């Protein structure tokens, strides 16, 4: 397969997954609003969300006030924000268009139609009127394109590169969703922040955002505690959006894409996966969850670079 084609497929998948996870993250935030909270903690929550997506400076450059409406608009609808849902769905579609001949017709039409609908008038007004419905819709379209892909695509390198992109992006995004709260805890030692950790409603909404609440109940049959949430989302191999499960997906697809030059990238991915597989939850907490997740994100980033240099880069000259 052409390196350029693989590159487009990889990024198409990453952008679609990112759009889905941004919708998931915003959905928790929206649900939190239904709970009593001080306006101070609301602003902190919004800022944490931007910081975790590394979008704080970009937001401050465009907006005066840290209001919920501004942040929502910035993360959902602003074309200038390359990580907004708008930009992600557009980028997914443009990447798909560049290789539309490689996609099955139904697969391409799903990605194209998602973009056309999102940018069209019907969905445009939904952000202010029914943001929750909009986020549901984004999630649903991501499910749909994954389903169409699995149900129609030939199981060849095109599919493996797409899945590689999905799992790599998911590992990154789940880590960030989890980190939203820990970034606050690690950086302030105030007792109110520490108390938030005990906040039952917060953790159930986190679980809900990654479709893990029912899974939690099934696995633990016990009350929701932060330690178990962390265990479930980082270390549980059966939980489809956990870091370990995402790394499993990365390693499986890398093995299917093996070439003479792919030894190093497989080693990097395999090592990261093994560390999660044999990790000790107590050690993660003693290191600090935020510190652990920060290191993890840096290594996922490095892994992405290695995938690019192994398979995707067009040699210069």
């Amino acid at each position: 397969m052409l390196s350029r084609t693989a590159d487009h497929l990889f990024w198409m998948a990453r952008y679609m997954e990112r759009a889905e996870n941004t919708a998931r993250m915003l959905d928790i935030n929206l649900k939190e609003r239904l709970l009593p909270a001080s306006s101070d903690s609301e602003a902190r929550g919004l800022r944490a969300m931007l910081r975790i997506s590394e979008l704080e400076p970009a937001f401050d450059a465009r907006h005066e006030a840290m209001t919920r409406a501004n942040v929502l608009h910035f993360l959902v609808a602003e074309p200038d924000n390359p990580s907004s849902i708008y930009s992600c769905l557009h980028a997914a579609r443009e990447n798909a268009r560049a290789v539309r001949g490689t996609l099955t017709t139904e697969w391409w039409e799903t990605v194209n139609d998602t973009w056309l609908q999102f940018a069209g008038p019907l969905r445009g007004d939904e952000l202010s009127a029914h943001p929750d419905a909009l986020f549901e819709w984004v999630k649903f379209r991501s499910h749909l394109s994954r389903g169409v892909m699995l149900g129609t695509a030939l199981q060849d390198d095109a599919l493996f590169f797409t899945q590689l992109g999905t799992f790599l992006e998911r590992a990154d995004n789940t880590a960030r969703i989890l980190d939203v709260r820990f970034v606050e805890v690690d950086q302030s030692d105030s007792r109110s922040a520490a108390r938030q950790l005990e906040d039952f409603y917060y953790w159930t909404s986190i679980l809900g955002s990654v479709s893990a609440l029912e899974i939690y109940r099934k696995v633990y049959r016990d009350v929701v505690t932060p330690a178990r949430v962390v265990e479930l989302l980082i270390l549980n191999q059966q939980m489809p959006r956990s870091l370990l499960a995402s790394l499993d997906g990365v390693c499986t697809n890398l093995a299917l894409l093996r070439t003479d030059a792919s030894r190093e990238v497989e080693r990097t991915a395999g090592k990261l996966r093994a560390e999660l597989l044999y990790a000790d939850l107590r050690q993660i907490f003693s290191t600090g969850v935020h510190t652990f997740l920060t290191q993890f994100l840096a290594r996922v980033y490095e892994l992405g670079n290695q995938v690019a240099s192994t398979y995707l880069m067009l040699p210069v000259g």
Partner: protein
Amino acid sequence: MPVHDEMRDERGVRPYYERFQRWLERQGSERMARKRAEADLLFRRVGITFAVNGDLSGTERLIPFDLIPRIIPADEWALLEAGLRQRAQALNLFLHDVYHERNIVRADVIPAQQIYTNAQYRPEMQDIDVPLGVYALVAGIDIVRDGRDGAFYVLEDNLRVPSGVSYMLENRKMMMRLFPDLFVQDRIAPVAHYPDLLLDTLRSVAPAGVDDPNVVVLTPGMYNSAYFEHTFLAQQMGVELVEGKDLFVEDNYVFMRTTQGPRRVDVIYRRVDDDYLDPLAFRADSALGVPGLLTAYRAGRVSLSNAMGTGVADDKSIYPYVPDMIRFYLGEAPILNNVPTWQCRKPDDLAYTLAHLPELVVKEVHGAGGYGMLVGPAATRDEIGAFRARLIARPSNYISQPTLSLSACPTFVDAGIAPRHIDLRPFVLSGRTVRMVAGGLTRVALKEGSLIVNSSQGGGTKDTWVLE
């Protein structure tokens, strides 16, 4: 005088349109309006759009699709097919001759100057043998029917990178999706096997010694106006769609960069003009091409379709000589008419043209896409005056032709159904033999009275039926 109407003559509906007409009367305008909206939606979702050249914002437009097909009866198609075959053969023989013995010049049929000072003549191709001796593997020959006498005329031979075949195929798919019943009541020649014929033709020109050639489609990229067609054809043939940056040349072989390392490329169906193919040989500023491609091509290590240098045969200054070519190479009388053409480089022809501007169509010799031309009867006095000045300044840059009143076909317009002028672009494939699918792309000028069918200037398309 009434214009030739494809559906009706003075006695009423033509026999080959009768069944369709009865069907149309049964549909009702509401149902047809709904179907038109459905077609728009489907085209958009499938992404059958074209980018407007020079528009960097990447705006994508739909080419308007009309639901009333253009129907060609079997006997008329048989005539057209024979004429197209003959023409494609003669043009390919001419190209081989131009780049080899130059017999047609020696026989004084065409002046040497017309060929060898033409910007489309490629000295790099002189004495290079291309596989099968075939240059224009894909030709899109534009045909019009004169609105007065009803006879067919060839308007131009597109031998460089003719486009539009994807619309021919998608239009048929759309009609079959919207109105399957129509295809039960009439026996309509299928067109869907075109990509198979194309692939077979491309494989037939593989470099010597290559048994299982790797064929690719070379596109300028996703912002090209015909990008949809490039992806479509690559997908339908099951071959890779590549851009210049995906290819490189080493030891005179062409390779593509894949995730598994370099892979040799044998046949390139290129949808990039000659000038952009190789920045080392032609335009150094071209980012679309492949450095070293020309050398590899001349060494016979890779095949190009169409060959380099085909433009010398479809130029408007060569067009007037095509009937002579047919007589010269094939010893046959031309089956299809040429439109009478005055070559303004000749003083007599220029004088005639200047005296009759309001009734003539004047075209630039190297122009395309309906740009840079004068349609006398539709032009204002000022426009004619301005054009006259340009014509006098550079006579050799122009040819003129009588304004054909193109035939018209009933078409959905805002006010209902009304006749609109049409043309036809059949696609002729030349490899070991000449092959084509029945029909072609019918373009329709949607503005009342307009003769310009180009999609860049508000033209639409129709499905084209050849009845069996």
